[in-house]
């Protein structure tokens, strides 16, 4: 298996000017790798730094030190911690997708369009993208009357399914999944897990955060445990 990602000495501190320059250390010298086609599960208590790590990988957080070497299909090796913004935007549009547990609602855009959008952005035909979106909604059991509705008023579980459908059908090469099954019932949870496994089959590598033991057990091929911003142990699934 080829290496997709290498993290070396990653540090993240928050410097809070509005609290008189207080520093909060969130990650301490993180080292780890992700191989192509693997699902790396991140475990740890709330506040242990799992989401911070994910956001550093997506560059929503600016790493304070260290290196995140990502082997891009189109650009070759890229240090996500230092790469210029245009490279990051390019990678986000073509290879790396972030799927959080919260939906960033776009006002007055129907659910189907929200889901189809990233696929269209990647050059897919609009009708084909909408077809894939419908298919995903069906599998995730989203009631048909919601498909053309605006997601702003949806329940947490419904919004989460939209998020997952959006992330999965865009066909990412590297997917960051933050609590994909948090507010779903058992049946939907399994549908989500199946979809993610299929995505992995197609060659996608995934970093996963989940507090749900079942999800973690079914999905993660390898696990890393974080505590107080440090990598503690490596658990083989």
């Amino acid at each position, binding site marked *: 298996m080829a290496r997709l990602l290498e993290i070396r000495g990653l540090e993240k501190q928050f410097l809070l000017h509005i609290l008189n320059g207080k520093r909060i250390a969130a990650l301490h010298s993180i080292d780890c790798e992700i191989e192509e086609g693997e699902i790396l599960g991140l475990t740890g208590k709330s506040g242990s730094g799992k989401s911070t790590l994910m956001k550093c990988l997506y560059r929503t*957080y600016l790493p304070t030190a260290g290196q995140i070497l990502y082997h891009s299909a189109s650009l070759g090796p890229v240090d996500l911690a230092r790469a210029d913004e245009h490279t990051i*935007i*390019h990678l986000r549009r073509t290879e790396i997708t972030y799927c959080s547990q919260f939906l960033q609602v776009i006002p007055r855009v129907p659910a189907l369009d929200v889901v189809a959008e990233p696929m269209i952005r990647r050059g897919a035909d609009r009708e084909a993208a909408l077809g894939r979106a419908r298919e995903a909604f069906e599998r995730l059991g989203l009631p048909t009357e919601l498909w053309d509705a605006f997601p702003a008023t949806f329940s947490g579980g419904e919004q989460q399914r939209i998020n997952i459908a959006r992330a999965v059908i865009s066909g990412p090469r590297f997917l960051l999944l933050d609590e994909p099954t948090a507010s779903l019932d058992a049946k939907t949870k399994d549908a989500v897990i199946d979809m993610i496994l299929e995505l992995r089959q197609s060659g996608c590598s995934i970093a996963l955060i989940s507090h749900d033991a079942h999800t973690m057990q079914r999905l993660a091929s390898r696990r890393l445990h974080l505590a107080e911003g440090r990598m503690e142990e490596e658990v083989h699934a």
Partner: protein
Amino acid sequence: MNDMALNSGWLLRVRGLTKIYGQPDGDSIARTGPQASTNICPVTGAIVACAGIDFDLYPGEVLGVVGESGSGKSTLVQLLYFDQPPTAGSAFFTALDNGTTDLFTLSNQRRRHVRNHLLGMVYQNPRDGLNFNFTAGGNIAEKLIMAGSMNVASIRERSSNLLRQTEVPVARMDQTPRTFSGGMQQRVQISKAIANHPPLLFLDEVTSGLDVSVQAKVLDMIRQIQSELGISMIVVSHDLGVIRMLTDRTLVLKNGRIVESGLTDQILQDPQHAYTQLLVSSLL
């Protein structure tokens, strides 16, 4: 469009853009800025609206410019749209002479060509962007005529398509925008701005002053136009919600200087500069 971002490099390159009103001396720029918390030179009284602005805009990219009133963000786009001349600085635009010519050195005639063919502007106040003595269709026709369209039937067809695209009832095409609602005036302005398929569009506080539902509609329309036509945009707003929804990358301006720039979600979730942190923490 998206893949072009890396292959063809920047679309617009701005360097050292500066606008000073009044009579500055050699140190006026040094005496102003975020460290001095003012853009008025204490010695000469000159107003440094913006100074030393550097940035690159990429094809298909939407760049946000945020900052409080008086931070110089509107001045920035007005300079680039030739509404006023800069005091110093240069701007290169690959749609013109392959980016080898500084926009600010152009003759008036070429400048107008760039304005009409290669740029679009949507102002906060529709009166700045529309001629209220002309009909809505006439306002759009002006841009089309400037681009050489000399056939009334095709001008009217294109205008009505543009109005349809921006959800303005075509039945109102032959009325003056004076009788339109604020949201509709803004949409006519957008129709006019995109009439000649410019590769670059400036949006200056387009949704300020509109009520929330109309605002959402206008924003959605801008998003649609952006994804359908792949137009690059510079979006000026003091509203971080607008910036979050529309932009990929953001410049934060204070007292006429860029204090921070980065990916929009990074600016909003992990702001580095004290001022940006204050701005973000003031978000409702």
